[in-house]
């Protein structure tokens, strides 16, 4: 139902140690954040896309679709950085007058927009590498290793499981409303969606009660503790990750 989640379980890198994937993804993300060279960003995009498409075996069509997801924000955001409106026309490189004002772009603005654009896209590929190869259960495991408060990981376990239960309920409700023409006009859409959401909320509330009862029958007494999977490190992978990161940092400093 959620494509990223689906690929996280069927990709070819699923069985790699989650911390190895996490280190590669976050390490490269950090390098991208701290160095502003577009060439480096470009290399990261190529490297991560290569890993995702070739090693993990994610279909390129699906990957391309995902690359379009952040596009709206990026387009609007980058435009916002590049554009300048000013009454001192001297700083504008290209532009046109709007009344007494000048609207256009300036050199510094374009530079910053380009850097932000390439940094954001490079970072997104790093995020995708993690998200597309690492099932959420493993991500939660990583967070547990990082000793974040237990309440958070316990909540995450339940949230993750019930996202799918509630999504199914919500989509059935939506379909049944659509069968009865519930989304025929804007005003009826509001009414129908309002109905759907309030019912979904009530259902969530009931489900939480039922879940509590069900867990109680298995001896729940305040802590949601489970047995952790055991993962095996691969020294070869770790060596490659270190080499990749050194390469990117070295490149960034040289450029």
């Amino acid at each position: 139902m959620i494509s990223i989640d689906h690929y996280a379980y069927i990709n070819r890198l699923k069985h790699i140690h989650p911390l190895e994937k996490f280190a590669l993804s976050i390490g490269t993300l950090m390098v991208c954040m701290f160095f502003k060279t577009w060439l480096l960003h470009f290399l990261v995009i190529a490297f991560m896309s290569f890993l995702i498409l070739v090693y993990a075996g994610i279909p390129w069509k699906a990957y391309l679709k995902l690359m379009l997801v952040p596009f709206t924000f990026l387009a609007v955001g980058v435009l916002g950085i590049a554009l300048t409106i000013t009454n001192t026309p001297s700083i504008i490189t290209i532009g046109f007058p709007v009344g007494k004002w000048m609207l256009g772009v300036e050199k510094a603005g374009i530079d910053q927009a380009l850097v932000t654009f390439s940094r954001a896209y490079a970072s997104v590929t790093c995020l995708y590498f993690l998200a597309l190869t690492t099932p959420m259960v493993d991500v939660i495991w990583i967070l547990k290793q990082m000793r974040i408060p237990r309440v958070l990981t316990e909540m995450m376990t339940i949230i993750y499981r019930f996202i799918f239960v509630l999504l199914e309920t919500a989509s059935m409700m939506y379909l049944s409303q659509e069968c009865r023409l519930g989304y025929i006009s804007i005003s009826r859409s509001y009414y129908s969606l309002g109905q759907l959401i309030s019912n979904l909320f009530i259902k969530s509330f009931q489900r939480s009660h039922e879940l509590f009862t069900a867990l109680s029958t298995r001896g729940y007494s305040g802590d949601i503790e489970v047995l952790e999977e055991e993962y095996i490190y691969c020294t070869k992978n770790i060596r490659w990750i270190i080499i990749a990161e050194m390469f990117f940092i070295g490149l960034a400093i040289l450029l």
Partner: protein
Amino acid sequence: MTQYIIQTEELEFAYPDGTKALKNLSIAFETGKKIGIVGPNGAGKTTLFLTLNGVHKATKGKIYYHGQPISYEKKELLNLRKRVGIVFQDPNTQLFSASVFQEVSFGPINLGIPKDEVKEKVMTALIKADIVDLKDRPTHFLSGGQKKRVSIADILAMEPEVIFLDEPTAFVDPKTSEELMIFFDQLNQEGKTIVLSTHDIDRVYTWADYVFVMKDGSVFAEGLPEEIFRNEKILNEADLQKPWIIEVYEVLLKGKPHLQELPIPKSKQELFDLIEKL
């Protein structure tokens, strides 16, 4: 000539992620009949219903309504959804209003008809579904069987010509199931075409005029119930059980081959009459 209310030609439906839920599906429902659809979970029964009323848009193939191919224009779609009603398996996903009256009025109001008419349609639907006394009750306090009836009234209020019922007896106890099946018979006698998907082989054998077997998103077999449910090959390949009436009948046949000349018993009563004649 046989009149078909809905027909499809090589219908295909794929979800956005590419999973094909219906493949090359050709099916035709005869007007005014009681039709059963059987097959394992995940065979595509629910998806088929949603595709036939236009909520899911077919990715390939054609759908005909009263012999006319349907396009996906807004007005036509609206009419299709009005004419082809779907009663969902779990009433809890269908019912969401505070009172039964409000609930049943949801469809007619969406059709944009005047209030008086809406009220009339709702009352007629409540009477037909025999739940007038529940009119002002909140939907979430009803029993499973009552909820089911409300969810059927929901659809009746829109005055459909075909009603698809998705496993209507899945969540209710046997007595309520029995009552519901009688109710579906009544609706059929009023001229509505009833299509029912179910796992209950014994009930569908007795009830249906015609049976489709679905498997992996397409029609695997079709025919009269007494043909389909005596065909070992079909039953095996579609993981279906044999109705017990047929099982008993076939055991009887073994001992008394002359029974073959009499018609196959279609109901419990017919079977028992046969046994008593022995």
